[in-house]
């Protein structure tokens, strides 16, 4: 997919020595430190970095949407066609920017106005900036929607944002960005919220449009694989500084800086080689899922059966809407299935009385995807981790809570003093560690990880996966690991189940499924998932 454009190597954008700082109560904090880069016509520049690396701040400076204060541009220039936009007055800049630079965001639902049809929102761009008639602008809108491959564009233009799927909304956003024929498109994590197969299509579309209109594309991402797929040049940002820059091939094949190498090593799909194989004794399964179905207005999961054995990691992969989370909710008994049964050590959990259920809950714990939402913000860490013992008061004497909380915090790699802090004082990865510590508190047999690492940066992701593997050996746990990200599952799981629209498509030992997929859907998934290996080999 990488296309080298040799013609018209005209410089579009040049960023010189840009430094941005933020004023906080703890003094001034440098978000971007002396950043230099340039972008030519028809070229894709990927800005790679983890959260807090300053990549989005850089983009908002270029767009002129940095809020000052608290932001402050300390030095540098941003030359757009040789005009320094930082020196322009606000109104001059707005006139210039609107038509030259456009941006696409990650969260499409919050960036489209829910009460206007998508067509009228795109048409508005024409009417405001180009002064053309309503009829004409509507015609152009439909053409644009057709260009980004929205099926049946003249009818769909009248639909509202919520009537589109996530991938289609991103297409609408792209159409909107194209409306004024910009020279540069900035895509800020454009596919992070999307499924792999849809992600592949959106990236393809972006690449196509770049070549067709000879635009410059700045792709901001935390995902190295995406950068490898689509970009010509990359810069790697860490703590506001460029640690590495160069052509995509050079950087990925020959990373110079230690941070880039660390990032490369954290890419999921590599830990598998280090994973210790545990000899499997196929004893009785601890959990048997038998023909369960769950119907809402639609079918969320349909006739699903599988087993979970002791000390095993079972991966469940599938795209959004495939019924993965429904299964987790059913096992956790947050919801009841419409049909079928779930056996725990041979006993049906659906016919459990209150007492049995209480004991079952002790043995099955959960770690959710969003570590920002899964911890109660008003409770401190000690209260959060010790809550299971307060509920199961016979488990541990009150006097021992403190020392056990310290032990648990240590075993997930946090400091015992963290117990008096509150969730908001931790980063995403640290919060996920707290959630894991809480899940471990009752010595469970099974931990269900529902997209437990998908909200985290790659290097943090790798740490959490290693932690989960260590804990499994230490406490002889079984995991049900639910994810949409295939490489992560490859790292962690012994067996894997592939789901689509509520049904199990394929299941088997992880190496078999990944190396020799039988079903077409599995093959498609594997193909769509971006990887660096394609670039390197």
């Amino acid at each position, binding site marked *: 997919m990488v296309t080298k454009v040799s013609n018209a190597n005209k410089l579009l954008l040049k960023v010189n020595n840009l430094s941005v700082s933020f004023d906080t109560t703890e003094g001034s904090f440098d978000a971007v430190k002396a950043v230099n880069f340039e972008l030519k016509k028809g070229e894709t520049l990927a800005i790679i970095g983890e959260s807090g690396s300053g990549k989005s701040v850089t983009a908002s400076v270029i767009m002129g949407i940095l809020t000052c204060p608290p932001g402050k541009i300390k030095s540098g220039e941003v030359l757009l066609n040789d005009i320094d936009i930082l020196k322009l007055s606000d109104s001059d800049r707005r006139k210039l920017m609107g038509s030259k630079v456009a941006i696409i965001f990650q969260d499409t639902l919050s960036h489209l106005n829910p009460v206007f049809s998508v067509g009228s929102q795109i048409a508005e761009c024409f009417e405001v900036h180009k002064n053309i008639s309503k009829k004409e602008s509507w015609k152009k809108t439909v053409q644009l929607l057709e260009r980004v491959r929205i099926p049946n564009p003249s009818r769909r233009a009248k639909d509202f944002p919520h009537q589109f799927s996530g991938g289609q909304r991103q297409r609408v956003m792209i159409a909107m960005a194209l409306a004024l024929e910009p020279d540069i498109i900035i895509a800020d994590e454009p596919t992070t919220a999307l499924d792999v197969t849809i992600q592949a299509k959106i990236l393809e579309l972006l690449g196509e449009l770049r070549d067709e209109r000879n635009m410059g594309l700045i792709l901001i991402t935390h995902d190295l694989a995406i950068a490898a797929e689509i970009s010509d040049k990359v810069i790697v940002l860490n703590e506001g500084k460029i640690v590495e820059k160069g052509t995509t091939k050079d950087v990925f094949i020959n990373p110079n800086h230690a941070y880039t190498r660390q990032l490369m090593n954290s890419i999921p799909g590599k830990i598998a080689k280090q994973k210790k194989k545990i000899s499997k004794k196929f004893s009785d399964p601890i959990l048997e899922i038998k023909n369960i179905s769950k119907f809402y207005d639609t079918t969320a999961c349909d006739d699903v059966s599988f087993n979970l054995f002791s000390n095993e990691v079972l991966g469940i992969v599938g795209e959004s809407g495939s019924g993965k989370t429904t299964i987790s909710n059913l096992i956790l008994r947050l919801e009841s299935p419409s049909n079928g049964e779930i056996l725990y050590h041979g006993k049906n959990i659906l016919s459990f009385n209150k007492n049995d259920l209480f004991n079952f809950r002790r043995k099955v714990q959960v770690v*959710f*995807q969003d570590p920002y939402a899964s911890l109660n913000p008003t409770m401190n860490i000690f209260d959060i981790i010790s809550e299971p013992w307060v509920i199961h008061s016979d488990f541990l004497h009150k006097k021992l809570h403190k020392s056990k909380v310290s032990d648990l915090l240590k075993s997930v790699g946090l400091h015992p003093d963290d117990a008096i802090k509150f969730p908001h004082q931790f980063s995403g990865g640290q919060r996920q560690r707290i959630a894991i510590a809480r899940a471990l508190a009752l010595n469970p047999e099974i931990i269900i990880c529902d997209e437990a690492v998908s909200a985290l940066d790659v290097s943090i992701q790798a740490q959490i996966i290693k932690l989960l593997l260590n804990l499994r050996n230490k406490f002889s746990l079984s995991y049900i690991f639910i994810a949409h990200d295939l490489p992560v599952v490859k790292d962690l799981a012994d067996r894997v189940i592939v789901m689509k629209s509520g049904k199990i498509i394929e299941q088997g030992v992880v190496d078999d499924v990944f190396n020799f997929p039988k079903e077409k859907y599995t093959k498609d998934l594997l193909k769509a998932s971006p990887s660096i290996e394609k670039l390197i080999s």
Partner: protein
Amino acid sequence: MQLILEKNHLMNKFRKIFSMFMNDKLALISIIFLLFMVFLAIFGPSLISESYTKMNLRLRNLEPFSFDHHFMYFFGADALGRSMIARLILATQNTMFIAGSAVILSMTLGGVLGLISGYYGGRIGNLIMRLADIIMSFPSLLLAVIVLYMFDPGLLNLIIVLAFTRMPIYMRTARAEVLEIRERLFVSAAISMGASNLRIIFKHIAPLTIPTLITIATLDFAFVMLGESALSFLGVGIQPPEVTWGLMVAQGRNYLQIAWWLAFFPGLIIMLVALSLNLLSSWLRIVLDPRQRWRLENIGDKSE
């Protein structure tokens, strides 16, 4: 040993709260003013003994700020020549007791009902919300007048009626908040841990709704004071010679042109109390939210 540790812990807590007050001077002034009013409400009436009923017809509508008479007449005297200071102190006790109890009662009842309605939903939830609708569909003053007319217009009945008519706002707000919080992941986490419904409602959901409810309650405090004065003015509220600030304002209205101080001083106090409560509630809202608490804590760290 244990006891000393606990004592130290308490001392630390006090110090922390005190320093958080020091970082918000307006809240500090408010709490001092409110504590003074509470002190007056509790001990005031026993200090002034019977002087609130003592009439002195020669001092009718005496102007305030004159040193010619006893200091009790410094704020002037009312139409029957009773000392304004004594009347205000007596009114403080009545008002604080009535409005305070009514607000606390309606906040607690309304809050709990709203929590239950929001958490359980279904038939119980609907039943509770329809109850709120019924209360709201009556003109609250009319309802209060009828109830108080039928029953004895005593202090307790007055409080209950005021609390009852103000309850729906807490029920609706609490319910709306619960509907959102209930879907958050930490609630699912608590359920899968085996937590009981009561624990989830009061340990996980309630703490997040309390700041909102308290803010409404402080706004409501002034409203309840006025509602009470309207009832008293109609003769179904507090009975003379007992008096409240609201009633003093209502009675003083007739004399506004010749003796402005009759309505002015109680009005001023109502305003100051309502203002202090508002300032205090915005302080409290920050203190109760761990994510915002640093705003009050950090300033202190810097100066140290």
